[in-house]
């Protein structure tokens, strides 16, 4: 199966850095309008599924918008000495500072990894307090959270187009029911893409299904993998039935996971 391991985003600064690197943007000349729009797109999806930490992203979105507005001012702002002020400057400094610590964190991770291979006496007793140490959910997810959000966004956008808002019926969907639904379909059909699972469904259905998939992935009941074109992700049962060896049922534009 095509799998790729990419890191989650730690917060709004991390997401901004991602955009900057992906688009080969000069940090000192960030196209704020463009970045702000893309950033907002993510925040809207995050709000809908009520992800933890969304407040930090909303704050950053507001900051981006205010910078965007300030850059549109007919007369540029000036500092005490009359020099023109770049409204982006403070944000850029924060981004650069964050980059330094992000790198330092990677360095620490390397030390930790190395040290983890060296066992001291009585190391066995450390097995129990281990519960206090973090279990990384990312280890289970082979796709990043933003990967998933990207897919969710796509389905939701489609759902919106299909279903005008005034027609939204008050049907409640809950995660437990959707868990059963996901497991049932995977059991019968084998690996499926998320879009195939949730296409043309009610928004509430899509979100509940998405959360159910996240939960199942965290528990190790399903594996997630990116599709090659990154526009969707594949949900596979942890132990795929022999009848569906690695075949993905769904509309993946002809791509098969192998």
């Amino acid at each position, binding site marked *: 199966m095509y799998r790729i391991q990419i890191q989650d985003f730690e917060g709004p*600064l*991390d997401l901004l850095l991602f955009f900057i690197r992906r688009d080969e943007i000069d940090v000192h000349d960030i196209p704020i309008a463009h970045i702000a729009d893309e950033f907002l797109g993510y925040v809207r999806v995050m709000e809908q599924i009520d992800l933890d930490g969304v407040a930090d992203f909303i704050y950053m979105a507001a900051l981006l918008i205010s910078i965007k507005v300030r850059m*549109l001012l007919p007369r540029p702002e000036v500092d005490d000495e009359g020099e023109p002020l770049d409204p982006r400057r403070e944000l850029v400094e*924060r981004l650069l500072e964050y980059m330094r610590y992000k790198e*330092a964190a990677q360095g620490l991770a390397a030390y930790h990894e190395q040290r983890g291979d060296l066992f001291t006496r009585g190391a066995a007793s450390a097995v129990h307090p281990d519960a206090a140490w973090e279990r990384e959910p990312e280890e289970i997810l082979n796709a990043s959270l933003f990967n998933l959000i990207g897919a969710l966004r796509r389905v939701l956008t489609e759902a919106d187009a299909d279903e005008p808002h005034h027609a939204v019926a008050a049907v409640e969907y809950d995660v437990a029911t959707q868990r059963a639904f996901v497991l049932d379909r995977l059991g019968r059909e084998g690996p499926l893409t998320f879009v195939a699972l949730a296409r043309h469904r009610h928004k509430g259905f899509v979100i509940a299904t998405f959360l159910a998939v996240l939960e199942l992935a965290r528990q190790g009941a399903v594996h997630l993998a990116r599709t090659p074109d990154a*526009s969707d992700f594949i949900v596979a049962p942890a132990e795929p039935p022999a009848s569906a060896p690695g075949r993905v049922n769904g509309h993946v534009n002809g791509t098969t996971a192998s």
Partner: protein
Amino acid sequence: MSTPSDSNGAAQAEAQQERLEEVMRAVEALIFAADEPVTPAQLGAVWADVAGEAPLPDAQIETAVDRLNDRYATDGRAFRIHRWAGGYRMATTEEVAPYLKVLFQRDRRRRLSRSLLETLAILAYRQPATKPEVDFVRGVDSDYALRKLCEIGLADVVGRSEAVGRPLLFGTTPRVLDAFGLDALSDLPNLREVEGLLNEPAYDQERARLLMLNGLGDPGEGGADAGDPADPEDHA
């Protein structure tokens, strides 16, 4: 026949060698039995107490440890003595890690999440630091991360800032050194200068890697977006 002075010198050398052997035995036993790094001061004081001599100087302890490690290497021992957290600690070599991981089922042990590592990095380089400072650098609320770090003993409250509201100051604990295999925090590389980071080949590599993931942002039109980062509005 050896002259008296010859045999005298030989006897002296022998006595010295014997003493070094005894120091090595004591140092080895103490480091072996302790469940945390043992400082040179502790080792020297214990020696003084038992031998009824002055405390061993650090240099002699270092010599003994070096000799022990040489012997371990020659004799194929599965452990070495490391200098961690300002003291000495015995640990198995990397080569035998696979066996230990199986016995202790700790392949996935002690992974620290990125949020914990980031927070710890900020504390390690800037300590003492308040929660608002950490929050600002990370751009996210670090309440959980700080709490977790304190809980697992890698961070601690170290005082109060003089700033408005007198927020608590956090710092790293000596346990960090042991957990990361460092003798002192000053062994950490300096924070890199920003220009260095931007010109880093690894940065370009990551950029290339990220480019492959292009389109992630907006599946519908991502490709086009990414290729055209310039936006006329921004330059208005």
